[in-house]
C-alpha cells in the first residue's frame, strides 16, 4: 500500500530560474492498494516523474506525506527503497555497473541475498526482458532499447512490493514490450502493485485497474480506464483509437 497525502513539490526557481518557483506536484492525495495496476498519465511537464519519485524518497515533498506499507517514507528510507522498485525515465540514469549481469545483480547484492538467489533473480529478470544470456555484454555497447531493457531487469530483480516504471516502453521493440507486460501481469497477480507513468496509454490500458491523470501537477482524473479515456485526450495523452480495439492493437488485452 502506498499512501500519498496532500503532497506538494516545488522547484526553487523552476525551469526559468525565476523567483517564486515552479509547483511540479500540487496537493496530490492518492492511495495505491497492493496488487493494483495504476497508470499515471499526463502531458510533458505535468509532474508525473516528480510525483512518483516521492514514493521512495528520491524527491522530498515540500508539503504532505507519503507512506509505504504504513510507514512514512521520511522515517524509514531503507524500508521505502526496498519496498518500492523504480525504473527511471532515462535508463542511462539508472545503470551503475559496466556489464549487464553485474548491473542487474547490483540491487539484490545490496539486499545481502545469497549467491544462488541472486543468480536466480538475475536470470529471471533478464529472461523477462528478452535479454537471456547477455549477462556479459558491456552496457556501454548496448543500443538504446537494450539499455532500457536492462534498466527494467534491474528493477524486476529487486522483487519489490511496489514497482514504479517511468515511461518504460518508449524504447522497447514489440517482443520486449510484450514480454515485460506479461511479467507485470504476473507480478500483479502475486500482489505487487504496478505503477506505470506514461502519456501513451495504447500499450498498457488493457492491463490497468485505474488511471490517474495529472495536469500542471494536480490530479484531474482518477477513474477506471474506460471512463478515464474520455477525459484524457484533453490532457495531451494518447489513448487507443477505440477502447474495444485495444486488444487487437497491443496483443495483450486481459
Amino acid at each position, binding site marked *: 500500500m502506498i499512501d500519498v497525502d496532500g503532497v506538494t513539490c516545488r522547484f526553487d526557481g523552476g525551469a526559468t530560474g525565476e523567483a517564486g518557483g515552479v509547483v511540479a506536484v500540487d496537493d496530490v492525495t492518492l492511495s495505491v492498494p497492493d496488487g493494483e495496476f495504476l497508470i499515471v498519465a499526463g502531458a510533458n511537464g505535468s509532474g508525473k516523474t516528480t510525483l512518483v519519485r516521492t514514493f521512495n*524518497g528520491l524527491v522530498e515533498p515540500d508539503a504532505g506525506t507519503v507512506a509505504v506499507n504504513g510507514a512514512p517514507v521520511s522515517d524509514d*528510507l*531503507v*524500508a521505502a*527503497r*526496498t*519496498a518500492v522498485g523504480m525504473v527511471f525515465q532515462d535508463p542511462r540514469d539508472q545503470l551503475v555497473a559496466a556489464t549487464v549481469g553485474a548491473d542487474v545483480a547490483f540491487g539484490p547484492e*545490496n*539486499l*545481502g541475498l545469497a549467491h544462488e538467489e541472486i543468480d536466480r533473480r538475475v536470470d529471471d529478470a533478464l529472461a523477462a526482458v528478452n535479454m537471456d544470456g547477455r549477462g556479459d555484454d558491456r552496457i556501454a555497447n548496448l543500443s538504446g532499447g537494450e539499455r532500457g531493457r536492462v534498466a527494467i531487469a534491474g528493477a524486476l530483480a529487486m*522483487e519489490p*512490493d511496489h514497482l514504479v516504471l517511468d515511461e518504460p516502453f518508449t524504447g522497447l521493440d514489440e517482443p520486449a514490450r510484450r514480454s515485460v507486460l506479461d511479467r507485470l501481469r504476473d507480478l500483479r497477480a*502475486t*500482489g*505487487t502493485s504496478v505503477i506505470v507513468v506514461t502519456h501513451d496509454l495504447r500499450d498498457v490500458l488493457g492491463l490497468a485497474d485505474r488511471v490517474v491523470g495529472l495536469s500542471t501537477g494536480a490530479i484531474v482524473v482518477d477513474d477506471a480506464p474506460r471512463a478515464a479515456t474520455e477525459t484524457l485526450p484533453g490532457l495531451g495523452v494518447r489513448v487507443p483509437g477505440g477502447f474495444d480495439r485495444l486488444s487487437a492493437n497491443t496483443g495483450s488485452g486481459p
Partner: protein
Amino acid sequence: MATSTESVDLVGDEAATNLARAALFAALVGAFAYVTFPNPVSPVRVTLQVLGVFLAGVYLGPVWGGASLVLYLAAGAVGAPVFEGGSAGVGQLVGQSAGYLWSYPLAAAAVGAVVHRGATLRDLDTVGLPTLVGSMVLGTAIIYALGVAGLALVLSLGPVEAVTVGAAAFVPAEALKIAAAVGIVRSDAVAAA
C-alpha cells in the same frame, strides 16, 4: 515476497552522492593523465593530473577530495588505466613517480581545506581569488615535496638533481594549470557539484 530489511545498512543519500562524485573526480584525474606533453627541460612529462587534483579539492572539499584521490590510487593499483599515459598497476605506486602519486590525496585535502576553511563546503562564489590561488600553490608545494623525495629515493638521485628534474622543471606548467582551474571554477557555464 517481503524482503527482510533489518540487515540492510543503506549508505545514505548524501554519502552515496559524495561517493559518486569522488569516483568521478578520480576518473577525471585519470583522464587528465592521458594528456601529456614532453617537458623541454626535464625527462619527466608534463601531465594534466595535477589540474584534476586541484579541482577535486575545490569542488569536493578536504574530506571527499582526499578520498577521491585515494580511490584514484586504489583504482590504478588494481588496473584502471589512470596513471601517466594510461599505465596502471601496483608497480606505478612504487615506481619513479610514486612520490607524486602518493602526494595527490594530501594535496587535494590541503586545497579543499584552504578553500573551504574546514570540512563543510562553502559557496565557491564567496571564495576570493587569493584564497583559490593560494590553496593551489600550497597543493603544488606538497606534490613537489613528496614527488622529489620519491625520485630521490626510488632512483637514488641526489637532492639537487631530484629538485631540478622533479620540481623546478614543472613550475611554468603548474602555473598554467592553476590558471585553468581558476577559469573553470569561475566559469558560470559549469554549474558543478
